[in-house]
């Protein structure tokens, strides 16, 4: 057991790719937490998807023992966090378990959008911030300039910044020293009634739901009965422990500790991140301050390709939700696609990742519909309804006003791209607010932008117009009245709810045209002509036709063709399994997301 004064709880925060997980590698190596044979690059990124994409998706807690020059033994609880804007919520929960944060800034890139947003989150949580300039080994490092940007952002002095390279290991000892000297140890409140904050959870097939907790007050050990603030169900604790890559049991967790607990919790809804656990015998009266409600930004329908898999999909979603509290879902039916779920996501990357995890980890085959934002619609009778799918948009005769979500966006960019970015924002119906300078050549532009524009192709356009240098952060701000229309798509003369979109009046015509021609490309030929139409209300504004398939035969055929042909056929067959029959037309998954592929200009 470590005395509280020898515990340090901290996380690593930064913009995406600035080297958080690589720095975690060096810390783990230096403390010999992992055996050399278990070590690999970004070892904490343990999910297959994280390794494939080379990004962190989940926060990863891990405990280390560090012996300093005076031979004192410290316990470090480190949480590596993701950097992508979609996962800001993940960062904010991790911060709640910590007293300090290592703020990493890439020496070549400098301060970027999530550097700023994560710094503010850390400040809001009263964390001690240790600024570190990483990747100083890069030839393109602009260390002095970046130092100035950090001073400006954090309000520290240049000597408080550590210069490091997570690649070469330079600066690592300074980082350890600063962790000990600058990050305050947690308060010892082990005599108080138990209060443990659930900051995350995972689901295990055998052990049930496993909450990740930070103990603020008291002591928790097996044999106690856990009581929660958000529901009445109580659980007997069977094990508590720390994270050392895996979960390692220990005798108890005391005030200041970070760890997990097991209590055979089968009902996943009983573990809510932000909830406080106390003990039945000596309960605390007040919960700890919880988390802000997460608001999903984009919504899309998830449908099993095989309708028999509906229940499996529901179970899978419930399980994933346990690892990812930001995932919201409710049952939905689509005329075209049958029974499925409307799901809320934090952004498009989040959406992609959830789909991929459902398919991989739960062996499901899914069809996804066009993502949408959530509109508020005021009806003629003055009731206000939420609409997060075009299928549910009331008839135009019933609508008084439509409000759309607006985000306040911060774009950080080298000065030379300001002009391009302003043009882009204007095209995307942005309202200019202010500009301030992070350093003499790096500006931060503030815009109010419709969220719907951001989820379509704003990010890609921003990157291409700034040669990759601009970065974006955004927060939901409020709702504003907007002139929006529902654009319906008819396939074979039937409206297909899963394909309709809500769009600004000014864009509706060219989006309709672009969608018809994109769908023509994406829908394979059938045995008959398939007309595709785009309609605003009863008016058809565009049409195209997928011509009937008249012939489809392999030309020649010799020995070598056989394997090749079989594989080709089998691959096409796989593709077909992902098609949905809408009426008698087979529509592939890509076609349902056609709107994401059209150039909205």
């Amino acid at each position, binding site marked *: 057991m470590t005395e509280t004064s020898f515990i340090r709880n901290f996380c690593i925060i930064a913009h995406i790719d600035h080297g958080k997980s690589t720095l975690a590698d060096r810390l783990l190596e230096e403390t010999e937490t992992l055996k050399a044979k278990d070590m690999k690059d970004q070892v904490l990124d343990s999910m297959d998807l994280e390794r494939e994409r080379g990004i962190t998706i989940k926060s990863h807690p891990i405990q280390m023992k560090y012996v300093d020059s005076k031979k004192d033994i410290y316990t470090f609880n480190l949480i590596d966090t993701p950097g992508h804007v979609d996962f800001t919520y993940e960062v904010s929960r991790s911060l709640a378990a910590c007293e300090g944060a290592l703020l990493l800034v890439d020496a070549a890139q400098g301060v970027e959008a999530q550097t700023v947003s994560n710094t503010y989150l850390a400040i809001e949580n009263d964390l001690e911030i240790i600024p570190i300039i990483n990747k100083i080994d890069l030839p393109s490092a602009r260390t002095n300039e970046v130092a100035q940007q950090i001073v400006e952002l954090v309000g520290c002095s240049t000597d408080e910044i550590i210069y490091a390279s997570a690649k070469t290991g330079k600066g690592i000892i300074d980082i350890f020293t600063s962790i000990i000297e600058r990050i305050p140890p947690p308060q010892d409140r082990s005599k108080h009634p138990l209060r443990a904050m659930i900051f995350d959870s995972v689901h295990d097939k055998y052990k049930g739901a496993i909450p990740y907790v930070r103990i603020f007050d008291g002591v928790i050990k097996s044999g106690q009965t856990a009581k929660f603030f958000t529901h009445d169900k109580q659980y007997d604790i069977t094990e508590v422990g720390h994270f050392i890559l895996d979960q390692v049991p220990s005798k108890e967790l005391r005030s200041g500790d970070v760890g997990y607990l097991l209590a055979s919790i089968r009902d996943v809804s009983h573990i809510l991140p932000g909830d406080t656990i106390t003990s039945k015998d000596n309960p605390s009266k007040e919960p700890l301050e919880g988390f802000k409600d997460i608001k999903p930004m984009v919504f899309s329908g998830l449908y099993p390709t095989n309708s028999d898999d509906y229940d499996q999909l529901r179970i899978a979603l419930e399980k994933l939700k346990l690892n990812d509290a930001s995932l919201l879902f409710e049952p939905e039916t689509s005329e075209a696609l049958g029974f499925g779920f409307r799901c809320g996501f934090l952004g498009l990357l989040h959406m992609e990742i959830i789909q991929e995890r459902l398919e991989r980890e739960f062996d499901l085959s899914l069809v996804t519909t066009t993502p949408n934002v959530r509109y508020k619609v005021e009806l003629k009778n003055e009731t206000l309804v939420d609409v997060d799918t075009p299928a549910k948009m009331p008839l135009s005769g019933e609508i008084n006003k439509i409000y759309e979500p607006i985000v306040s966006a911060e774009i950080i960019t080298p000065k030379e791209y300001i002009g391009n970015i302003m043009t882009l924002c204007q095209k995307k119906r942005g309202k200019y607010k202010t500009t301030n300078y992070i350093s003499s050549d790096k500006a931060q532009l503030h815009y109010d932008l419709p969220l719907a524009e951001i989820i379509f192709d704003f990010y890609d356009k921003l990157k291409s117009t700034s040669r990759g240098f601009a970065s974006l952060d955004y927060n939901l701000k409020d709702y504003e009245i907007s002139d929006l229309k529902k654009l319906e798509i008819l396939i074979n003369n039937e409206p297909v709810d899963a394909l309709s979109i809500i769009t600004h009046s000014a864009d509706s015509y060219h989006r309709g045209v672009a969608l018809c021609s994109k769908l023509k490309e994406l829908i394979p030929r059938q045995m008959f002509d398939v007309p595709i139409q785009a309609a605003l209300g009863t008016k058809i504004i565009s049409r195209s036709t997928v*011509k009937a398939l008249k*012939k489809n035969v392999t*030309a020649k055929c010799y020995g070598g063709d056989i*394997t090749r042909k079989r594989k080709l056929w*089998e691959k096409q067959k796989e593709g077909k399994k992902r098609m949905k029959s809408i009426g008698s037309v087979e529509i592939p998954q890509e076609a349902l997301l056609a709107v994401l592929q059209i150039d909205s200009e």
Partner: protein
Amino acid sequence: MAKTNSGIYIHIPFCTIKCFYCDYSSTAGYDEDRLPLFFNSLSKEIEFYKDIAHNFIFDTIFIGGGTPSIINPKYIENIFNVLSINFDLSHATEITLEINPGEVALENLKTLKNIGVNRLSVGVQSFNNKILHFLTRNHKKRDIFRTIENARKSGFENINCDMIYNIPNQNQSTWKKDLTALIDLDIEHISCYSLVVERETELYQLVKSKDIKMPDNDNSCYLYKSAQEILGKKGFFQYEVTSWSKRNFECKHNYHYWNIDPCISFGPSAHGFYNGKRYWNVKNIDKYIDFISNERSPVESSEKLSDKDIANELLGFGIRTIEGLDLTKIPESKKNDVYFSIQNNLKKWGNFLIYCDQQLKLTKNGFLFADAIAVDLMI
């Protein structure tokens, strides 16, 4: 185990020029001095297989390419000798060799006939000089007539002509003229292939860069149907998606492919199949020679077929012939899956697919959709 009827394929990877649509393994031109080395390797490769040879009844031999007609027939003769030493060829009743119009002398044809070749496959492609030029072919219309005439003079009584349709700038009337000219040649067998844009050909690059536009699906359908109609009227019986013949002149060797029978294949890039395993040789001629001169097998890779693979191959290729697929050949473990798939597809393809008495076959119109139906039938 009962011996199965099987084929032998020999790949001769040399051509006079490389046609711009062709992705078969062949080089334009060759070094006369290196031919003995190449054929020695080929002979040696044949010897590698002598121990398994007795498991099969070889009833067809196909010398393909490339253009085997451009090399001195003495090499072919030598290969036949090596084959007959190592394999029992007493059942080999169909021995085909591929030739190009204008690229084989009368005396060579006579030699080929004498050494046992009894069927010729002629790469006619078209009778229209403009189209032949577009296809970058080395021959003109008159070469076709001369070559066929010489073949007859040499005693060949079983001649196939390969034709290509669906060629840019080929209209319906040029194709109909081709078909009429073919009929006038009075040959025994006709194959009509729709021009396929294969990756790694010049044609592919030109289509990609939009310098060439391929005709659309409707056009290709029309041309195919006119072949069915015109050839049908003149006594050519369509017995497979791309093949027509006079009675009893069906190509037995190709049936081995469609029936998923064994076929032992030799030469660079050759693909063979026996004991449930598909194998393919290295493509590169120098590597091929190198491997063999080092006593190593030139097989680049192989694949053991699972029951599912076999079922899918049978479904995809079996339905191409007029007799259709004999479903009793489907591996026992996959029979249920296959029946289930057939039932599902009868709804969609009922007009084109006939299923009765353990046979699954296409109607004449069904031939038009052989690939689309194959995809849907896959298990």
